[in-house]
C-alpha cells in the first residue's frame, strides 16, 4: 500500500477545518505583510481615502471571484466571466435606457435583465460542459467569444450611457467610508461561505471536486450540481455587470476583457486548488485583496506599469507553488 498507510492509526494533528484555517492564515499573513510594507514605504496607503479606493477597486474582481470559486471547487474553470459581464452590462444598459418608464421600474428592469443574461450564460456553460463531460476550459472559451460577440451585437458596438441618477448614486455611495458596492461583495462572500460550509449543496460541491464518481455512486445528481456551480458563476458575472454600470455610468461592450484571469488569480492565490475539492471563499476574499492591494500599492510607490505587471505575475506563480506544497502536505 502507499506510504500513507504506514502512518495509519496515528490521528492526524491537523484536522480538516483546522487546516483550512491555517491555510487562510497563511494568505492573511501574506496580505498583512503587503499592507505593512506599503504602509511603511508610502505616505498615503493607509489614508481613509485610499482604503475606500482599494475597497472600490477590488469589488468587481471580488464578485466575479466568488462565483469562480464554486466553479473551480468542482474542478472546472470559467473563462467567460469577463465577456459575460460585458454582455450582461449591455443588456442591462439597453433596458435602463428604455424610454417611457419610471426610474424605479427602469432600475429594477435593468438589474433583472443583467442578472438574467448572466444566468443564461452560466446555465449554458454548465449544461454544455456537464452533459458531455467536456472540459469546461473549452466550453467557456467558446462562451467567451459568444458573449463578447453578443455584447457587440446587442449594443451595435456603441457604449451605452446616461443612466438614472439613483442608479449611479448606488455605485458611489459610501457608508462610513465603505463603498456600498463593496458591502454587496462582502455579503456575497458571506452567502457563499454559508452555502459552501453549512449546506448539503456546498458539501457536495466539495465532494464533486474531490471525487465525482464517489458522489455519483452515493446517489447524488452530479450533473445538476455542476450546472448549479456554473450558473452561480454566471449570476455573479451579472451582479458584477450591475456594479460596473453603477460605478462607471456606462455599459461598454468591450468591458471586462481579461477580467476572468484576475478572478481566477484571486481564487488561486486564495488557496483554492485548481484541481478542485479544496479551498474556501474566505481565501478568495483574501486573494482579491492581495491583487487589489498590490495594484494600488505598486502605483503609490511609483513603480512603472510594466514592473507592476511582472510583480503581479510573480505573485500568482508563488501562490500556485505554495498551493502545490499545501496539497503535498495534506496528502501525507
Amino acid at each position: 500500500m502507499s506510504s500513507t498507510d504506514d502512518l495509519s492509526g496515528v490521528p492526524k494533528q491537523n484536522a480538516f477545518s483546522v487546516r483550512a484555517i491555517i491555510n487562510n492564515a497563511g494568505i492573511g499573513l501574506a496580505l498583512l505583510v503587503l499592507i505593512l510594507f506599503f504602509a511603511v514605504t508610502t505616505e498615503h496607503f493607509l489614508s481613509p481615502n485610499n482604503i475606500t479606493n482599494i475597497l472600490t477597486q477590488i469589488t468587481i474582481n471580488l464578485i466575479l471571484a466568488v462565483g469562480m470559486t464554486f466553479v473551480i471547487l468542482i474542478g472546472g474553470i470559467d473563462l467567460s466571466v469577463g465577456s459575460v459581464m460585458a454582455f450582461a452590462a449591455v443588456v442591462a444598459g439597453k433596458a435602463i435606457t428604455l424610454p417611457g418608464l419610471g426610474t424605479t421600474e427602469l432600475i429594477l428592469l435593468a438589474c433583472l435583465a443583467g442578472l438574467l443574461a448572466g444566468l443564461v450564460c452560466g446555465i449554458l456553460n454548465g449544461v454544455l460542459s456537464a452533459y458531455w463531460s467536456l472540459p469546461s476550459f473549452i466550453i467557456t472559451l467558446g462562451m467567451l467569444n459568444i458573449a463578447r460577440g453578443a455584447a457587440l451585437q446587442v449594443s451595435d458596438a456603441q457604449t451605452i450611457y446616461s443612466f438614472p441618477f439613483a442608479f449611479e448614486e448606488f455605485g458611489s455611495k459610501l457608508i462610513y467610508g465603505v463603498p456600498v458596492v463593496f458591502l454587496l461583495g462582502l455579503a456575497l462572500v458571506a452567502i457563499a461561505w454559508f452555502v459552501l460550509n453549512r449546506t448539503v449543496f456546498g458539501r457536495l460541491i466539495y465532494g464533486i471536486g474531490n471525487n465525482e464518481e464517489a458522489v455519483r455512486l452515493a446517489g447524488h445528481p452530479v450533473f445538476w450540481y455542476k450546472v448549479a456551480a456554473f450558473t452561480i458563476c454566471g449570476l455573479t458575472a451579472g451582479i458584477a455587470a450591475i456594479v460596473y454600470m453603477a460605478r462607471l455610468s456606462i455599459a461598454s461592450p468591450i468591458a471586462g476583457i481579461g477580467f476572468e484571469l484576475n478572478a481566477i488569480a484571486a481564487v488561486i492565490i486564495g488557496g483554492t486548488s485548481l484541481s478542485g475539492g479544496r479551498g474556501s471563499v474566505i481565501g478568495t476574499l483574501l486573494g482579491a485583496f492581495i491583487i487589489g492591494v498590490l495594484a494600488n500599492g505598486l502605483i503609490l510607490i511609483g513603480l512603472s506599469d510594466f514592473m507592476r505587471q511582472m510583480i503581479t505575475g510573480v505573485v500568482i506563480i508563488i501562490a500556485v507553488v505554495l498551493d502545490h506544497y499545501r496539497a503535498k502536505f495534506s496528502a501525507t
Partner: protein
Amino acid sequence: MKLMKIAAAAATGILLSSGLAAAEDKPKVGLVMKSLANEFFQNMLVGAEEHEAARGDYELLAVGMQNETDFESQINAVENFITQGVDAIVIAPADSRAMVRPVKKAMEAGIVVVNFDVALDEEAKKQQGLELAFVGPDNRGGAKLAGDALGKKLGEGGKVVIIEGNPGADNATQRRLGFEDSVAEHGLELLDSRTAHWETEEANQVFSTMLTAHPDIQGVMAANDSMAVGVVKALEAAGRDDIIVVGFDNIPAVVPMVEDGRMLATVDQFGQQMAANAIDLALEVVDGGPALEGWVKTPIELVTAE
C-alpha cells in the same frame, strides 16, 4: 492556395459586403478596417457605407477584424482584394510594419492604395522601396490641442498626469507625445504617466490610486474618452471638482460631460468621415488624378463647452 486564403479571410475577418457580381463598370474599392468592436471604427464603417450610398458611383467591399492586433486577417483581406481585382484599397493598418509588404504587393498589381488612420512605418517603407502617401489625422497634433487647452487653463507650473493607451500602439504613442509637447510648451509639471489600456474600469482604478499618491493633481490628460469617463467617475467618487480633465475622440458618452464642465475638452478627428474622405481621395486617383504625396492631414477639431 488562393481559395484557402479567401476562406481564411472570411473566417477570421468579418466579411461585411460581398457583392462581386453587382458591379459591371463601377470601380470597386476595398476597405480594410481595424477592430469593429471599437465604436470608433464601427462608426467609421457606418460613415463609409452611407458615403457609398450617397455617391452611388462605386462599389464598397469592407473587411474588419476581431481585435486591435489581429493583423493576420488584414493581410488575408488585402490578398483577397488583389485576387478579386479591386481598383482601390483603402486601409487602416493594424500594424504599421507588418502591413507594408502586402500593401506593396497590391500596388505592384496596379491597385491604388490609400493608407489612412495610422501611417505605415517610414523605415519599413524605405526598406521595401515603397512610396505611399498617408491620409489621416495628426494624433500628436490633436493631443497637443487638448493638452494646450489644459495648459492655458492651468498656467505655468500646473500639475498634470497622463492616462495612456495601449503601450506599443502607434496612436497611443502619438497622443502621449502630443500631451508631452503641451507639458513642455506650457511649463506644466508631469507627476505621473500610466497606461489604462484604453479601458474605462482600469482608468478608474489607476487614476483613483494616482490621485491618492498625488492629491495635488490639477489636470488629467486621457488618451481616449473611454478612459476620460473612468477618470471623471473617480473624481466624482473622491468628491473633487477642482481637477480638469481632457480626453480624445469625442464619443457620445462624453458630450454631456463636456457640456456640464466635468470635462474641459476633447478632440474630434471626424472619424465617421475619415474612411469616406480616404475613399474620395482614392477614387480621384483611380479616375486619373495625380498620385497622393506625403501626409494628407484630415481635419481635427478641439471640442469644448463654448
